[in-house]
């Protein structure tokens, strides 16, 4: 399966990027960025996750169907989180009689 084989050099590069991302997310957590701390941490985590999925899990070389299935997993997870938080976050927004 030659098309499944990535050169080991790119594996080492991804590995170094993942280690750098871990150091970065730990370092940046000790600075006060206000409300941005969590978005920054999640952005770094998301970037690391994409590197793992695309290169270590070979999704970059996988069939379109596999790519769609992987993306569907993320989509359904966002539905779960998005709709739940849509409820939790907005509960106090509207007054109602007897509140």
């Amino acid at each position: 399966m030659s098309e499944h084989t990535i050169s080991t050099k790119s594996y080492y590069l991804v590995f170094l990027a993942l280690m750098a991302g871990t150091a970065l997310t730990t370092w940046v957590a000790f600075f006060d960025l206000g409300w941005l701390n969590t978005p920054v941490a999640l952005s770094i985590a998301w970037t690391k996750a994409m590197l793992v999925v695309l290169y270590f899990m070979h999704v970059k070389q996988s069939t379109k169907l596999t790519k769609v299935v992987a993306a569907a997993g993320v989509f359904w997870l966002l539905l779960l989180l998005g709709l739940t938080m849509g409820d939790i976050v907005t509960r106090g927004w509207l007054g109602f009689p007897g509140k």
Partner: protein
Amino acid sequence: MSAEVHEALFHAPRAHQFDTAEQQRDASTLGMWIFLVTEIMFFGGLFCCYLVYRWLYPAAFAAASHHLDVALGGFNTAVLICSSLTMVLAVNASQNGRRGALIAFLILTILLGGVFLGVKAVEWHHKFVDHHVPGPSFHFEGPDARQVQLFFSLYFVMTGLHALHMVIGIGLLSVLTVQAKHGKFTSEYNTPVDMCGLYWHFVDLIWIFLFPLLYLIDRHAK
């Protein structure tokens, strides 16, 4: 059915229902990914629970997070990333038919997984000593003790479920190591190594999100 025909139908690297070896591999990859999507939703429920309570009790979650050991958590993150590298190198070795390298990388991955679980056990032990385990003996100095207990419940369930996946992964890799020793995998047939690799990377993936969400909440405030 003659023995040769039986052998060709049921023990060949390519099963008879597939036209090509590549089609067979793509089918396995697809099946594994569908399983991993169910795993995303399995952990997703816990992440959702975490998100709701962190939104409701941000101060308690920050206070509780400061009682986790960033050095140990960061070290474990690095260990898992190293194990993902050795796993991908094992898959690469099996695709190139390098049996010795495959066995060596599999054993390295198992050892790194063992290191992760060992460090995790030390961390959990600290929590028991500090009475930070939810339950009758839970004790926390400071306000919001009840909400802090919620954080530690999520901490134990999420890291516990993750650790269970690690244990299963180590079991799978051990079976692969034995099979590799018996020469089961060649450059033509190495799908089990590939699939277990996907599983192992998925477990790494979960930890990539658990580490900042559990260990790094508002660290600057301390």
